[in-house]
């Protein structure tokens, strides 16, 4: 979800961002060339640059001091070992000696926490990888009454290896019991069916243990192979960024690429759909005409064993999740990826494929017509406010929605419903254009920067594309740009907002590259990118959607209401506030019906 709730700044605010970052470049320049003889390591460069950007550009930066260090340290430890079953108490005490060190590491780039955490983590994972198999090698006795606490937040770390093994024994027993109980229930339900194989209790118990063993085999292999020091460093920088607010994030290069792919709806890959089962990744389908299809060597059912970039050594992807594998397979246009495939006859084959553009057309706006109560209603679905910032001819949601509205008007619809449920946001400039389709001209959103200056963003186009009856559907997962859209439609009285109260994200982020030499705006910095909260946005009525979200005109509660998975559930969310109301006129209660609306 988190990733979906992104919101990029409007291109129109570039001058403001440039001022902020321009100042930063100056500060950075003055701290460089300080006579260091050795070139800074990648980690050092990332840490010091992140510190500078956070201090100089964040909307409301926390002071980088010991209190901040402890906050980051606690969060990092919890992220590394959320169930408190990997580290021993002694490991945590050793790490705790460094809990006030985060701010120093950010200033000097000299890293101590991550290498120590990595060393201890690897040691414990190796131990767990040995003993979990022994625990699962013998049947559990389910007639003994035992208790275990599944949420270990309030518990301490195990003090000894024996204590840790006991924690694991109970956890593995519980996981086995869940599967065993399901298997018994299924046997009871289906025992009379001719096709059902009735198995003995002992068999079902053994199969349940084997299923649990497979899960941990995969999970521990992943922790061992995939979650190395680089990944732990990325998690560390991510924790530092997110300590500022929930939407300031660190993207290592590959994550930034995934973000761009989501924003643009296109990527460079091989054109095959992958799926994971039992710890292996298989080809599920091959898109006709794609590079994988053209190679003639990639077939549905093939297992991907290794992935290599051009001349580099191959990476064994056993234990990888599909998303991790996809990140390795995708890359830059025209570059080569080598896949080692296990074919269905068991043979291994290496296939060389040159990546090409694959368009995820299914992520774009689409529409349909609903007939109900003798009326024709146009339905438009928008998954996010996408914009291909790198390509003016690429996909932009406002252009696509405009096309859909024109198509629906040609069909002579009586009204339009725009579905923004689960729409996590996107480009601000696209929202402004889209609101403009439904109003004459006027303000759409207000943006405040860290110095308190408020800028009003206007739709300057007097024409109205659609002035007929209009409704917007939202839910708890409609965030950011979706909330701006729904709020503007509500404030203008231009349509009815229906659904449940939206997410409540009222902040604007911008991506800043971390490679000083390449320049901060290099979108593909080799060191990664920091998505920083630079501004807050406000409704034209002056209120903020931050924490509060948009309250629908007609409330329809749904399944997710009780989960309270909203901006306000983040402890470090920025507060709600308001600015002055912008000058706008509420659209008079629509008196247009189809015949007039379609002129």
């Amino acid at each position, binding site marked *: 979800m988190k990733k979906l709730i992104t919101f990029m700044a409007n291109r129109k605010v570039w001058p403001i961002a440039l001022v902020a970052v321009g100042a930063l470049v100056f500060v950075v320049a003055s701290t460089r060339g300080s006579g260091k003889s050795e070139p800074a390591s990648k980690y050092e460069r990332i840490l010091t640059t992140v510190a500078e950007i956070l201090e100089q550009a964040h909307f409301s930066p926390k002071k980088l001091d010991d209190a901040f260090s402890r906050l980051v340290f606690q969060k990092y430890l919890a992220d590394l070992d959320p169930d408190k079953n990997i580290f021993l108490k002694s490991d945590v005490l050793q790490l705790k000696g460094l809990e006030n060190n985060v701010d120093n590491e950010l200033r000097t780039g000299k890293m101590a926490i991550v290498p120590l955490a990595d060393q201890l983590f690897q040691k414990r994972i190796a131990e767990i990888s040995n003993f979990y198999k022994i625990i699962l090698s013998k049947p559990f006795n389910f007639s003994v009454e035992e208790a275990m606490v599944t949420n270990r937040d309030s518990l301490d770390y195990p003090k000894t290896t024996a204590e840790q093994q006991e924690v694991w024994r109970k956890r593995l027993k519980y996981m086995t019991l869940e599967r065993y109980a399901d298997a018994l229930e299924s046997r009871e339900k289906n025992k009379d069916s001719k096709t059902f194989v009735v198995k003995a209790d002992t068999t079902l118990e053994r199969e349940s243990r084997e299923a649990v063993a497979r899960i941990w085999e995969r999970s521990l292999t992943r922790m061992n192979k995939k979650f190395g020091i680089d990944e732990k460093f990325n998690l560390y920088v991510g924790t530092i960024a997110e300590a500022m607010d929930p939407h300031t994030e660190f993207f290592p290069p590959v994550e930034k690429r995934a973000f761009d792919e989501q924003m643009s709806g296109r990527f460079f890959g091989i054109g095959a759909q992958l799926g994971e089962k039992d710890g292996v990744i298989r080809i599920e389908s091959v898109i006709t005409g794609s590079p994988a299809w053209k190679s003639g060597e990639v077939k549905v059912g093939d297992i991907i064993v290794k992935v290599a970039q051009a001349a580099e050594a191959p990476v064994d992807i056993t234990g990888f999740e599909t998303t991790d594998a996809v990140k390795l397979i995708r890359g830059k246009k025209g570059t080569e990826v080598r896949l080692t495939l296990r074919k269905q006859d068991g043979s291994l084959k290496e296939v060389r494929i040159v990546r090409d553009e694959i368009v995820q057309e299914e992520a774009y706006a*689409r529409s349909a017509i609903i007939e*109900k109560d003798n009326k024709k209603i146009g*339905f438009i679905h928008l998954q996010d406010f996408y914009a291909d910032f790198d390509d003016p001819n690429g996909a932009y949601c406002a252009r696509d929605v405009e096309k859909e509205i024109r198509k629906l008007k040609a069909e002579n619809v009586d009204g339009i*419903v725009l579905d923004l449920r689960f729409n996590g946001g996107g480009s601000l400039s696209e929202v402004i254009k889209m609101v403009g389709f439904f109003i004459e001209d006027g303000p759409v959103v207000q943006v405040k920067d860290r110095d308190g200056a408020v800028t009003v963003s206007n739709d300057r186009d007097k024409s109205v594309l659609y002035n007929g009856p209009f409704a917007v559907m939202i839910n708890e997962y409609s965030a950011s740009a979706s909330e701006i859209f729904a709020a503007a439609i509500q404030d203008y009285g231009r349509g009815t907002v229906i659904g449940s109260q939206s997410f409540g994200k009222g902040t604007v982020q911008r991506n800043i590259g971390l490679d000083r030499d390449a320049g901060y705006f290099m979108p593909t910095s080799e060191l990664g990118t920091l998505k920083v909260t630079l501004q807050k946005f406000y409704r034209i009525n002056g209120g903020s959607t931050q924490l509060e979200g948009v309250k629908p005109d007609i409330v329809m509660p749904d399944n997710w209401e009780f989960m309270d998975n909203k901006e306000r559930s983040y402890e470090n969310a920025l507060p709600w506030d308001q600015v002055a109301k912008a000058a706008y006129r509420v659209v008079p209660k629509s008196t247009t019906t189809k015949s007039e609306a379609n002129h």
Partner: protein
Amino acid sequence: MRQTIEQNNKLQALDQPLKMAYMKADEDRIAVMDTMKATRYKEWLKRLQKDVYLSESVSVLNAQIDALKTAKQ
């Protein structure tokens, strides 16, 4: 718990699916898509046809359209 979830899901699915279709141009586009993609497009529509929230939203809009017509008469 399973029963409650089942009951909840049932309550949220329409007994009578909405009459909902792609426009001609889109149908032509889907007709020439590869099978998996075309299936996903069709499934998407099928899911929405049972969406009680969509059905209610359309009813709200329809009521407003009726109210507008009455006001004009």
